[in-house]
């Protein structure tokens, strides 16, 4: 191993990155774009869902119930329609996520103390939204129903029994249940997959495509020096991008950061070595820029996006898929990220994630060093 040769390769690689507008844009803007995109664009909080109402009663009481719906941040009453077909049409064309039908004898039945049913038509094409709507509309109606009962008892001079039981909830780690706090830490894994695997796979395949690799391997430089020299600038840039992404998350999106920077940097370095090694392996096998970039996206970016627990909780995946996530390095890194950011879990309690990540780091780095030979074909 010669430091002179390693540095020569690394310096050349850095100059090439800085001179190539496309890779420079990816390196500099990608972290910011991804964090902003997911910070603003992906919002799993369901608030202000459009609701249409067909009020057949039109009484003081029915207006009261609707005010309760309107008061909830989850519903927004867009229209009060005059007929049933108008309501179904709004559901059909997607203007309404839910339709509420209040029966003509709503206030009459309430006055008589008889049970009354309010119909809620829910758009079930998105099951998650539908579940939320059903749950919250039941809560709203039950709340109103309790009020009505209390009034009914009071009017008759009966004593009011306070509710016997209630749940006092307190949410930890993500106190306001902001989905951005849940999502943004995981974006770091995406940024690294792009910088690490995608860019790296391009740069080495490019050397084969342009024939410069032939000149390179005719010199005394060793396979190890080529690999380390080529990956070193990307390692530095990847770590730089990690810090940038973390800072945007913390200071722009107010994502809590409760853990230690040291743990974050160590885990990030491990994951970066994993994706760099993957990018290197891919480029050695593919030898064309196009093939390499496609494979890199397929085996690093997509799993990091879909199966790492970044957006979709692993516990809710089918069992088979849950097992598959165990062979994804991104899963462990995303888990570490969320714990460091939101929980502040100290390093020694992260071993369940850090140990598998370290194993991946070691194995993939080893595979990468073995994969490259200084031969043409």
């Amino acid at each position, binding site marked *: 191993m010669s430091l002179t040769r390693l540095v*020569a390769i690394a310096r050349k690689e850095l100059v*090439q990155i800085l001179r190539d507008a496309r890779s420079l844009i990816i390196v500099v803007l990608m972290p910011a774009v991804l964090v902003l995109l997911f910070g603003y664009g992906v919002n799993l909080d369901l608030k202000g869902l459009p609701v249409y109402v067909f009020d057949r009663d039109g009484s003081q009481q029915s207006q009261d119930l609707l005010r309760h719906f309107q008061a909830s941040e989850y519903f927004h009453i867009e229209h009060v329609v005059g007929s049933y077909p108008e309501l179904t049409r709004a559901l059909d064309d997607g203007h309404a996520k839910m339709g509420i039908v209040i029966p003509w004898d709503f206030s009459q039945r309430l006055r008589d103390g008889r049970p009354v049913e309010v119909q809620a038509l829910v758009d079930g094409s998105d099951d998650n939204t539908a579940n939320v709507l059903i749950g919250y509309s039941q809560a709203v109606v039950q709340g109103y129903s309790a009020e009505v009962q209390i009034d009914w008892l009071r009017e008759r001079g009966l004593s009011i029994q306070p509710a016997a039981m209630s749940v006092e909830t307190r949410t930890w780690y993500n106190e306001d249940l902001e989905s951005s706090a849940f999502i943004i830490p995981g974006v770091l894994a995406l940024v690294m997959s792009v910088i690490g695997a995608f860019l790296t796979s391009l740069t080495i395949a490019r050397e084969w495509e342009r*024939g410069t*690799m*032939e000149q390179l391997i*005719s010199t005394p430089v060793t396979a190890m020096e080529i690999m380390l020299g080529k990956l070193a600038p990307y390692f530095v840039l990847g770590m730089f991008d990690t810090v940038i992404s973390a800072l945007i998350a913390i200071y722009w999106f107010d994502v809590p950061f409760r853990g230690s920077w040291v743990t974050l940097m160590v885990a990030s370095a491990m994951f970066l070595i994993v994706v760099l090694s993957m990018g290197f392996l891919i480029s050695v096998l593919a030898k064309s820029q196009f093939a390499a970039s496609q494979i890199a996206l397929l085996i690093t970016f997509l799993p990091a996006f879909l199966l790492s627990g970044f957006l979709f909780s692993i516990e809710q995946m089918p069992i088979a898929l849950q097992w598959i996530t165990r062979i994804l390095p991104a899963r462990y890194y995303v888990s570490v990220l969320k714990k460091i950011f939101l929980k502040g879990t100290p390093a020694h309690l992260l071993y369940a994630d850090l140990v598998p990540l370290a194993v991946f780091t070691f194995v993939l780095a080893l595979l990468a060093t073995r994969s490259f030979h*200084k*031969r043409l074909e």
Partner: protein
Amino acid sequence: MRKGEVFGFLGPNGAGKSTTIRMLCGLLKPTSGHASVAGFDVSREPELVRQNIGYMSQKFSLYNDLKVIENIRLFAGLYSVPSNQLKERIEWALSMANLKGQENLITGTLPGGWKQRLALGCAVLHRPPVIFLDEPTSGVDPITRRQFWDSIQQMAETGVTVFVTTHYMEEAEYCNRLALIFRGKIVALGTPSELKRDSMKGKILLVECDPLGAAVEALQSAPDVMDAAVFGNALHLVVKDAAVALPQLKSYLTDHNISVTRMEEIRPSLEDVFVSLTTSREAAEERKP
């Protein structure tokens, strides 16, 4: 090959010139056989071979997106040029490539001939005892080609062994020794004059006559003529014995209503040798089942 000689490797496209060079540089693994370069075995000690050679591949393969000086620095680093020699070697490479004062140009913007000389400069920064040049002058204008060969000759004079492939016959004349390669086999080996003297099966007659086309046709079936080919505005004939054939052919052509203005024996050019050797090989191989 001997030390300090310019050894030319001549052959048609696909004959195996580049493959040979790549095997000698340790870039391809030989399927069988041995080779040693600068005293090291190419399959067992490829790294020692690489420290002692400079290689210029057929396709320009420096970095087009780097500046001239950045390419030179890169290869100086890869060849571990000692820092106390670095400045002098960079200066040398720049002056050899005629790129002094142009250090900061992006390599991709240079004309082809300059690029080739820069590539040569980069390949010999570490003063290797042996250099391999794979068609170094393809696509380069004649003047630059001439300068390029001057640089090669200068290096050879300092004791560097040069192994060069080409398919330009006039370039072959610059070589101390030549090997003609055809379909992966060496068909002739020697100095250019040895090849011209010994490798031809017959003698060459130069014929200036009119009309040329009819003459070629007539001569194909003439007795004693082994081959007839057009060279510029004259014909080259291959015959067994010039003294016998000369008067015979003169009258043969006159009989065919072709006026002969000049007919004499000439020394064969390398191109004659090359054409004659490859066509006879081709014929021999076709006769085999």
